[in-house]
């Protein structure tokens, strides 16, 4: 049997296979997809709006240079993060109809961008920790002395930083695994 005949025999077997009896409601799938994206976007927007509104209310209630600086930092960080989420979700769909070579290239660049984002996030966590903990310690130890608030404030900062670092570590591990898979694919 020559190679063409061999492929023809395999093709015959292959095409004779009846599809599994999966029930796909097209409208349901589309609606679910739309709903999932809308909910995800709405959740991000809601989080951003609540954070912005809360910080705005807080700073107007306590109109001092210190709180204005804090509110500005929160506003800038929230706006940048929200813009990134929207940009990233738009890009996810924009690449699927490219050829595999183009798709692999983009997937790799996206993984590398995510790793950069993780590095940036780790630095941001470290910097905010280095600012927030001494500031809270100074605030509750000298300005408005309160052991309870001091422990609560510093404890919250420590727990939040640890949670962020663990999340970044897990995210990084996933992205590195993805990059390894991509390398294995292109190395063949």
């Amino acid at each position, binding site marked *: 049997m020559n190679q063409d005949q061999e492929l023809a025999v395999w*093709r015959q077997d292959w095409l004779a296979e009846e599809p599994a009896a999966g029930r796909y409601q097209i409208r349901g799938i589309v609606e679910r997809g739309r709903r999932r994206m809308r909910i995800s976007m709405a959740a991000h927007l809601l989080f951003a709006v609540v954070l912005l509104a809360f910080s705005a209310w807080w700073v107007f209630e306590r109109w001092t240079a210190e709180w204005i600086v804090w509110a500005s930092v929160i506003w800038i960080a929230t706006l940048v993060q929200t813009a990134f989420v929207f940009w990233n979700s738009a890009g996810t769909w924009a690449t*699927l*109809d490219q050829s595999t070579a183009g798709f692999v290239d983009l997937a790799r660049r996206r993984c590398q961008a995510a790793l950069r984002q993780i590095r940036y996030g780790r630095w941001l966590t470290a910097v905010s920790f280095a600012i927030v903990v001494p500031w809270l310690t100074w605030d509750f130890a000298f300005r408005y002395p309160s052991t309870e608030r001091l422990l609560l404030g510093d404890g919250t900062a420590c727990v939040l930083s640890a949670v962020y670092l663990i999340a970044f570590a897990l995210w990084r591990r996933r992205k590195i695994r993805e990059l390894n898979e991509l390398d294995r694919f292109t190395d063949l």
Partner: protein
Amino acid sequence: MAGELETQYERIFAEYRPALERLSGCYESVPQAREDLMQDILLAIWKALPRFRGDCSERTFVFRVAHNRCLSHVWRRRKRAETAAEAPEVPDPRAGPERQAIENRRRQVLRDAIRQLPLNYRQVILLALEDLSPAEIASVVGVTENNVGVRLNRARNALRCLLEKHV
């Protein structure tokens, strides 16, 4: 416009569903996960359809989206061993029980062997089995036709070896 798209999508769904089912079965062996992958593929086609401008054939477009979605599924999922036991037996109502069993077994062996191929080879052999021309495969994969020929040849040799092991 939206109505036109929905009509086009429904036609694509009806026309390519068996091929997409076969395709997802070669990238995911667990039935529940395969159904999820199939839904992801259908959703990805729906999302990509408004950008389809006819710069390639519809078939090429559908297979591009589907393969990219499958590859991304494989890269992202947790590592686990692929086992033949996970593949479902698909009854064929057209043949008698004995012949049906033999044919089912042969198809299952072929599917399991394809599943064991490296992704690069799996992709070209799947497209060739779906009867895409070398030019169409090149357009899906994003390589030259010569490169498709080389990969297909290697994939065929690898598949033959795997099938011989099963016999």
